[in-house]
């Protein structure tokens, strides 16, 4: 049970990281490239 919760948090953390990266790349594409 603990592992499942831990996995859930990791997935949500990964989702957050991916979304942040997406925003960074979007800004990079819009303003700097």
């Amino acid at each position, binding site marked *: 049970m603990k592992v499942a919760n831990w996995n859930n948090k990791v997935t949500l953390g*990964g989702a957050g990281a991916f979304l942040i990266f997406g925003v960074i790349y979007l800004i990079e594409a819009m303003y700097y490239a």
Partner: protein
Amino acid sequence: MPDSANKDHLDVTKPDTKTKPKPALGEDENEGLIQPLHSYLLSLTMILFSEIGDKTFLIAALMAMKHDRVLVFSAALSALVAMTILSAILGHAVPTLLPKRFTNFLAAVLFLVFGAKMLREGLAMSSDEGVSAEMQEVEMELEEKEHLARQQGRRRSSVSPYALEMGLGRGARKSRSGSRLPSPPRSPSLSPDRSPSPARTTIKGAIAGLTNLLSLLLSPAWVQTFVMTFLGEWGDRSQIATIAMAAGQDYWWVTGGAVSGHAVCTGVAVIGGRAIAGRVSLRVGTSSPFSHR
């Protein structure tokens, strides 16, 4: 006029060389948000977040329960490094075909889509499923492969005892070394090399040691882990993200970050995999760690 032309020419070149040839490059690099070290950190964190709890992580964790940790770590990391280098090459080749702005935009879209997908998965994940569901999937796959390997081993070894009994030691030895299963210890009566002279025994001993070393380096478990990790990583979101990052950024730093991330993840999987998988899966947890070790 020629003097002025020369002067102008020198005036143009001198400030270029004197003032800042490198700062000019630095300014170009500073134009973007993502600098080399940033791209290293980005790829490192991206791999850490996307690989922990992933299929390749579980493969490494499960294989480390049954086989030597160093062996599993080296096999899984080699597969991941090979895959990362391939992804980086692919990512480096893409911007030559497409403009940088477009590749950056494509990378942004990919990251946002993967992020949204992971967010949905994470929110929809109940406490009962999660790692255990994927772990069972990987277990099934591993069992299938082992079953196949056992069948192949039986087919091959079904010839060897007879051949050994008939005194065909060399043929049996070759078939045994070709087998994909780890060879069990032989009894002296069954050993094919019963050589009379001591010189021959030393040479044969050296050859046997060399073959043992090679079988250790390229053992069936190593090959199985390598192939499963390579195929498991193929088309994975981390691979596509690596391609996207290598397309947009300095691919050397991206590759370095991705390799570091994979090394950390595989290390965690191999060291802590036994505890994690033991808690998740009762079947594997009760059968392999205590019976094999």
